[in-house]
């Protein structure tokens, strides 16, 4: 069967612990004035948490290359949106 049998629950609890740490980090860094770096740092932490969820909870780690390419296309679509948006607004 395509889905791998998971008998150990440990990875889920480890990821959950990391996600909770990430939540603490997200709130904690928000109380410092980091200037222009504030939002990029918040996004970096959010993306780290999101990657853990996608990789372990959503089992993308064990997915087929077809699924990886599909997900990549979603991220490329999102990136195109942001790149064109900012190449316009930042250049005004």
């Amino acid at each position, binding site marked *: *069967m*395509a*889905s791998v*049998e*998971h*008998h150990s*629950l440990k990875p*889920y*609890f480890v*990821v*959950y612990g990391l*996600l*909770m740490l990430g*939540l603490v980090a*997200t*709130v904690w860094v*928000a*109380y*410092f*004035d980091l200037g222009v770096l*504030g*939002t990029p740092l*918040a*996004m970096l*932490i*959010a993306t780290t*948490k*999101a990657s853990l*969820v*996608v990789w*372990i*909870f*959503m*089992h993308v780690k064990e*997915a*087929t290359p*077809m*699924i990886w390419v*599909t*997900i990549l*296309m*979603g*991220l490329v*679509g*999102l990136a195109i*949106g*942001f790149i064109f*948006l*900012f190449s316009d*607004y*930042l250049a005004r």
Partner: protein
Amino acid sequence: MSSTNNPYLAHHFDDIVQQHESVSLGMWIFLLTEIMFFGGIFFTYAVYRYLYPEMFHDMSHHLDVTLGTLNTAVLLTSSLTMALAVNAAQRGLQKRLVTMLSVTCAAGLVFLVVKFFEYSHKFHVGSVPGPLWDFENPYGNKAQLFYSLYFAATGLHGFHVLIGVVLIGVFAINAYRGKYPVQRAQPVEMVGLYWHFVDLVWLYVFPLFYLIGRF
């Protein structure tokens, strides 16, 4: 696994592996459309925050960080229980599957209840864009922009949570009736993907709306 006698193999698939891959691919393509759906809100957010940084900074102060943090913790916990539910389904642990789906469903409800209190507070202080707008602030009517985006993002997300709660509730009942034996774990995997996606969106909504300009 031999697929010849699997009652859960649809006739238009060669084998269970192919069926599993096709179903997963379909679900991921749906999630991609969801990325672009929520992406539109984030694009709009990026433009207006770039144009009015101080206003976003100040208006974010009026959101409740404690409730936002609580709700993030609730959603992250529900993601764990959803992952455990999928694991239970894959291992054929019926009782645990029902328990984990029920806990996930309940966590989704907790999220919505907290959201309800946040929203009703906004109606109370008049920070709801539109005819009900009556919010004292240095930016006047312009501040409606922030709240429009806030309600659009959290409202759309909340609606997804509501759909998830109903779906997972139905899945819990079906699991209780034994409709997800180990050979048919995939529907649970797919509803799991949906629920994790809803969690992912919140991971971005929370810092972008609640946590800007806290210092």
